[in-house]
């Protein structure tokens, strides 16, 4: 029997994806790396990547290349910093986000 998967909020999934991209630095992260790191299905990954690009939180590095890689924008880095603060605050009260 597989262990019960903990519920992850949408913001947590987006933050997990962005943390994976941040860890790759200036080189950026490819979809496969993000998919495994954030533990997502391909459809979900595509949907969330589009949403992150739309919100200017990440950018695709070379739009003409067949190998898609993504890196964080300044807005994305601010988002992750704010997320870390909110996470510390919530966890102090035993609230998971």
């Amino acid at each position, binding site marked *: 029997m597989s262990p019960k998967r903990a519920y992850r909020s949408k913001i947590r999934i987006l933050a997990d994806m962005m943390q994976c991209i941040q860890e790759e630095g200036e080189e950026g992260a490819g979809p496969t790396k993000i998919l495994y790191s954030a533990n997502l299905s391909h459809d979900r990954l595509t949907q969330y990547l589009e949403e992150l690009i739309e919100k200017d939180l990440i950018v695709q590095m070379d739009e003409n290349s067949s190998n898609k890689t993504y890196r964080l924008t300044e807005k994305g880095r601010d988002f992750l910093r704010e997320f870390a603060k909110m996470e510390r605050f919530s*966890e*102090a009260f035993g609230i998971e*986000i």
Partner: protein
Amino acid sequence: MQDITPDQLGAILLLETISATIALLVSHYSNKAFRFTQQKRLADLSTGFLVLSAGMYGRVLGILYAAVSSNLETLTIVVIATSFMRIMAYVLFVVSTRHTISKMTPELVMFMQIPLLVDFNLETVGLILLVIVVLQSLMNYMSTRSRYGLYVLVGFVLLLLSHSAIVTNSGYLLSQILQLLAFLALLVMLLKVGREE
């Protein structure tokens, strides 16, 4: 029956005002976190601190008004209403965390007696709710070992001790000092959360 001197009453109201302001800050930050994350329990926490803060401000204003007007009825209403607000706030904490004064005449000194500032039945209900909140905070700290969680645990333990001081008749001023220390622990947590990377 323990009398409160005008100086003590001034200190009590000042301490309560500072505590209420810190509670308002925590409410604001919880609401900010809620808007960012859409986690409903943060909205409950924010409402809890807002109700607690409003209750404390209400108590300060009510006591001031009663002191100036020498109106005992007003004081009774204020004490019961604000005690209910505290209980509402603690209920919200249970839900969200589950794992001063012008110179007074001697007559006023007689009039301001501890049992008039406290409804013992409601304080006992508040005490029971706070025991649950403390236990939940303890479980949270034991599982996360986060120092931010420790500040919250210390804050709620001090708030519990503050209510215990009232229920055991150890002194209203002592209770207010403990309450202020509780909110200062939460303020330190809030400052550290915002500053540390």
